């Protein structure tokens, strides 16, 4: 199949493409599934990170 006789290499070739397809399906299915909120703790963390970055 596809000019590749070794089943394990063929599996890797198709497996790599399949992994990407799984990623696409996952992203589409979960697109809005999780909560999307920034907590005060998140903001505090980002301010601290920004401070270090700016100093740098």
């Amino acid at each position, binding site marked *: 199949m596809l000019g590749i006789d070794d089943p394990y290499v063929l599996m890797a070739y198709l497996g790599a493409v399949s992994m990407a397809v799984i990623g696409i399906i996952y992203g589409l299915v979960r697109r809005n599934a999780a909560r999307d909120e920034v907590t005060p703790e998140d903001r505090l963390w980002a*301010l601290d990170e920004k401070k270090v970055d700016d100093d740098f």
Partner: protein
Amino acid sequence: MTGHSSVGWVDIVVILAYLFATGYLGWLGYRGTRSAADFLVGGRSAHPIIMAVSYGATFISTAAIVGFGGVAGLFGMSLLWLTVLNIGFGILIAFIFLGEPTRRLGHHLGAHTFPELLGRRYQSRGIQIFAGALIFLFMPLYAAAVMTGGSIFAATQFGIDFEVALLIFALITAAYVIPGGIKAVMYTDTLQGFVMVFAMIFLLIFTYMSLGGITEAHQTLTDMADMVPAPLAQMGHQGWTAMPAFGWGAPTYDLWWTVITALVLGVGIGVLAQPQLVVRFMTVRSRRELDRAVPIGAVFILLMVGTPFVVGSLSNAWFAQNGPLLQGKVVEVIDAEKDRALVELMQQGESGAWTAILNPKTQAPVRAPMIIGERTSAQDGDGATFELVAGRSIAATYTKGDADKIIPAFIMAAMPHWFGVIFFLALLAAAMSTMSSQFHTIGTAAGRDLYERISDKGHQREPSILVMRLAIMIGLIIAVTISYTVRQEYVIARFTAIFFGLCAASFLPAYIGGLVSKRVTRAGALASMTVGMSVSLFWLAFIKAREASAIGLVQLVTDGKTSLLADYPNWPSVDPIIIALPASLLTLILVSAVTRPPDKAHLRRCFPD
């Protein structure tokens, strides 16, 4: 080498235009919203494409494209298993299972670096210092791999010496990372990511088209299995579309253990514990943003690592069909019907006589598998008449066996010159986006995790910017020195594999254990990290023949052997990760089981939900 290499004024203008565009985007970024943290501060979200491509551009470097692509040119498509693991572990498992717990734990504990995350999770200054030191000491090895990859390509493409290319590359890197490019400027990363995507799509399509389509190209390569050079066949190479021979206890299985344990597992699993990638999760706004980045990330990695592995392998078919003609004398017929033979390569001297080309290291005549196209009569140096054959060979013949040069040689020989410049920009982009993160990590490891922790005995201090900048300079100098001095077989892929494997064995159990288990203890984590690192370094210095022989200690204790297990086939090819990672995991479990659990108040802080 093949083709015509030169650097014209158009090339210089295109490269400068790209560098200015990158600089301009960076400058625009500084004026407004620029880093992931800025997005988070503003309560907004970076577009998932920007987040994913920026992550991918940090993940993928010249090491993957030139180094591992070249290894695929040598060993074949079995390396595609690394693509499977890169997407499976590096994107799916990392984003879906580790991303959110890392983000939450980092924010709960106020951690900003990977060592700080571990140190605060386990309430241990020692763990933070340990992790910071390991990163500071060994990250330059990985940076050297990235730098070597870019420099080899530039040297090949523009016909300049490797040393000159390395110097230019180092100067561009210094100009990029020292004044501020070290910040995760997401738009710049994204521009770099898009250049990489364009280059890889074009490269993949062009290669398949030039070989008659997907199936035709693969079939041509499959039919070339009898042209595998003898030294590789003796290690278990069975063709470029076949897995290496699998088994244990004979040298004919060495290649399987090298490809699968060092290159596929070492790098494939090691990506989960890459400090510069783990911290990216903490800058993400929410779980939803992580979920949305998965598809883009998966496709990006497929293109970035799948393409060079496929193209690297197929370069053998391309050179065998279209490569420059080589001449020589038949030494052994491989297949009379297909007119394939093992040929002693020859060159014509000024007198018109043909003499053997000698290997500069061994002074032995160079032999290569060849598909013969022409046969003529010629005279050798002694005036004797012989049959001179002309034909084409596999990729490694044209690069004198140097895997690191296979992708550059293929691009230069097979692709239009303008694409070589675009590809160089893609490599520059891949290198810069990765190196900015590498040197940022080196800087924070030295300043925040080492200097502050050691000098202030655990109390918070303002980060020492001077130490960070100094560490970046030192890291850069070390990386350039390593690139300059170490030029061995597929060194780019090996350096990358060493660093990834070391990170996996030292950090992975403690990192994942800290995310998912409340029972893992400080002593367990520290013991696990110590065992993982010690076993890895011991294995590299005394067991794994290729690395051990380069380090040189093993020869001193074994009277010249390249491994303590040199008399036991396959052991010297096994990667440290196979021993060190299970040892590290077992240590984590056992030591945690017999030591006092962490206090409940701290665990409530780590896992408030």
